[in-house]
């Protein structure tokens, strides 16, 4: 799961500071753009949350429990940022008065974390990095005024900065073990020895450089319930009742430029357990009209045990959607591609007939007729397959064979009666041409050893028969030329 993020537009721009070529010039550039100069209101106050349990885990992406914590933290402020793998940052200056000051907010947040069964360390600081470092320091850290920040950071060990181990060790060799000591080093020399990034870290820590943070946005799911004014079991009425919900869902998804891949409808009854009706889509979908159509088809096949009192729509997780632009040409015209309605058709057929009812065919390089093809799911996008695939793959070698093949294959070979050693199928059969021997498959247990014949029946149909090579030499019908 990946949370969509946006850059926090309210954070002051830091481009001049970040792009400054020479670190020695940087403080001047940063000071001219200091947050206080830009923000007319009060300076920000960051609350750093450190979850020690997550620190050791070296895992890909953001841990799920951190996302849950960030989602809970949105109760306190809209400006929540993730600091993976084990930190969350909240900008709380404007929320302080709502929660009874720093102490009240702290208590409330600790309560939320207790509900999530997480022990956390909290720290308040005027810069986000200082709040994180303070929380990691595992001692009470609360700095509300920027003027006290440097002094309060001084005793914090350097390891809280999470610099590379090699830098920490080199600094330790110099006798530098705390943040206060490193802040006293000459700037130019420090940048030269340890890199400009380390100096930028220090500037961000003390508020000399701006530190923009990506804002966390919780992935929201759509869920609406509607009580019917009368109990109904009619599909048309249920579809009509769901329509406004779907319209709302369409608006919800459009605003986020997202689509859903799965929808679930619940129909609540008086006595029975609610009936579930699931809809799975081929591609992320946000078009309410199309959803209405698909759901309408699905409802027709739904069996309700009892009239419905209320219906509820639960959308799956919104996923980002590829936006299509309408083509200049009509589909099928010159230059027009097979368009997305190919997907729409497949979805509609699937909804009504079941997922397995729609398939396409693929060649398999095998000599046995029953193993020379397989069923495949149709391509997700009709346009993707519009270029004909090259026909010279391994499967096409069988196709290019000279021996004729029937257009129809029987689902299973059909045993034929015999008369004087010759097969009969609704009358006598006339064998034509030379037999073709197919002997293959000893390696996978479906060994065949057959002599295939073309035959013509009394009505002029061409059939494809085989005779088993082994005793008792039975005859089977396997294909029809059509």
């Amino acid at each position: 799961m990946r949370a969509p993020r946006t850059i926090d537009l309210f954070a002051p721009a830091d481009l001049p500071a970040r792009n400054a070529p020479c670190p020695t010039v940087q403080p001047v550039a940063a000071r001219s753009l200091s947050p206080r100069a830009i923000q007319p209101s009060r300076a920000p106050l960051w609350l750093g949350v450190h979850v020690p349990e997550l620190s050791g885990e070296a895992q890909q992406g953001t841990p799920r429990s951190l996302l849950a914590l960030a989602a809970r933290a949105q109760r306190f402020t809209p400006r929540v940022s993730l600091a993976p793998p084990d930190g969350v940052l909240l900008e709380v200056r404007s929320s302080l008065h709502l929660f009874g000051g720093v102490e009240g907010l702290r208590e409330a947040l600790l309560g939320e974390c207790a509900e999530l069964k997480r022990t956390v360390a909290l720290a308040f600081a005027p810069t986000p990095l200082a709040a994180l470092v303070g929380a990691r320091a595992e001692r009470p850290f609360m700095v509300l005024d920027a003027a006290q920040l440097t002094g309060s950071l001084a005793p914090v060990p350097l390891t809280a900065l999470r610099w590379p181990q090699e830098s920490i060790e080199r600094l330790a060799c110099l006798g530098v073990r705390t943040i206060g000591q490193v802040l006293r080093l000459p700037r130019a020399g420090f940048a030269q020895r340890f890199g400009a990034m380390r100096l930028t870290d220090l500037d961000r820590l003390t508020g000399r450089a701006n530190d923009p943070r990506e804002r966390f946005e919780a992935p929201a799911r759509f869920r609406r319930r509607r009580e019917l004014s009368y109990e109904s079991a009619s599909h048309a009425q249920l579809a009509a009742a769901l329509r406004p919900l779907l319209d709302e869902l369409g608006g919800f998804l459009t605003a986020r430029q997202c689509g859903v891949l799965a929808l679930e409808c619940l129909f609540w009854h008086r006595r029975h357990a609610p009936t579930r009706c699931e809809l799975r889509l081929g591609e992320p979908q946000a078009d309410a009209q199309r959803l209405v159509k698909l759901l309408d088809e699905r409802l027709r096949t739904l069996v309700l045990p009892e009239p419905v009192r209320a219906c509820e729509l639960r959308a799956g997780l919104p996923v980002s959607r590829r936006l299509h632009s309408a083509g200049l040409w009509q589909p099928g015209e010159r230059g027009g591609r097979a368009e997305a309605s190919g997907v729409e058709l497949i979805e509609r057929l699937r909804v009504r007939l079941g997922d397995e009812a729609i398939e396409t065919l693929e060649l398999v390089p095998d000599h046995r007729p029953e193993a020379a093809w397989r069923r495949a799911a149709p391509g997700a996008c009709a346009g993707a397959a519009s270029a004909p695939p090259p026909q010279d793959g391994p499967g096409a070698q069988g196709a290019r064979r000279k021996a004729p093949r029937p257009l129809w294959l029987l689902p299973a070979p059909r045993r034929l009666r015999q008369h004087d050693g010759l097969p009969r199928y609704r009358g006598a059969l006339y064998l034509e041409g030379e037999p073709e021997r197919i002997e293959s498959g000893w390696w996978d247990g479906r060994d065949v050893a057959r002599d295939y014949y073309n035959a013509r029946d009394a009505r002029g149909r061409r059939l494809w028969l085989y005779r088993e090579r082994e005793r008792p030499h039975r005859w089977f019908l396997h294909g029809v030329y059509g």
Partner: protein
Amino acid sequence: MNADSPRPGVAPSRPQADPRLERLLAHPALWRAGAATRAPVWPSGFASLDEGLPGGGWPRSGLIEILPARFGQGELQLMLPALAALTARPEARWCVWVKPPLQPFAPALATAGMVLARVLIVRATDRGRRPAALWAFEQALGSGACDSVLAWARHAPIRQLRRLQLAAQRGNALGVLFRPRESARENSPAMLRMALEPRRGGARVTLLKSRGGTLRALDLTWEAIRREPLEAS
């Protein structure tokens, strides 16, 4: 319409025609009965068949019916060259097979030149009152995502056929309905209806209904298939 009347859709060739008459006939304000029914067509792949079909091929949109005496007498072979050419176009749409009676054999289709990635097979099982196969047939025809749709039906009420014909025109698709020979007695709104009898190495096609064309019998041989890429419309 007797046999001497000019075949619609095919430019009448009369070497001794009066040039003044030709000029008059070329006038845009003049409508001729045959030309009025001319619709765009796909070549069938059989020269003798193209000659006998109105417009010179299978209609690009509309319903046609093929009535073989028995299943498997060459009715699919008859459609195959056109279907293969349709799927091989770069702008090809789906070629849908609704509830085929047996398993279409992929290697044979590939040998005939069909692009299998464009073939869609629908296995419809009836649920409820309305037959699922005819419903799927109509959906595919009207969707605009298909070049050709094939279906097999024993009984098809004329109201249903009318809906299919309209859906095919709406979706700009060629609908092919394979029905038993007995259905020839029933009425049908299809554009073309043809009976099929097997001949040695080919088939005899008898046109039972041909909108804008003449009714006649044509002999085909399977060897005489022309394979050429289709011109885009």
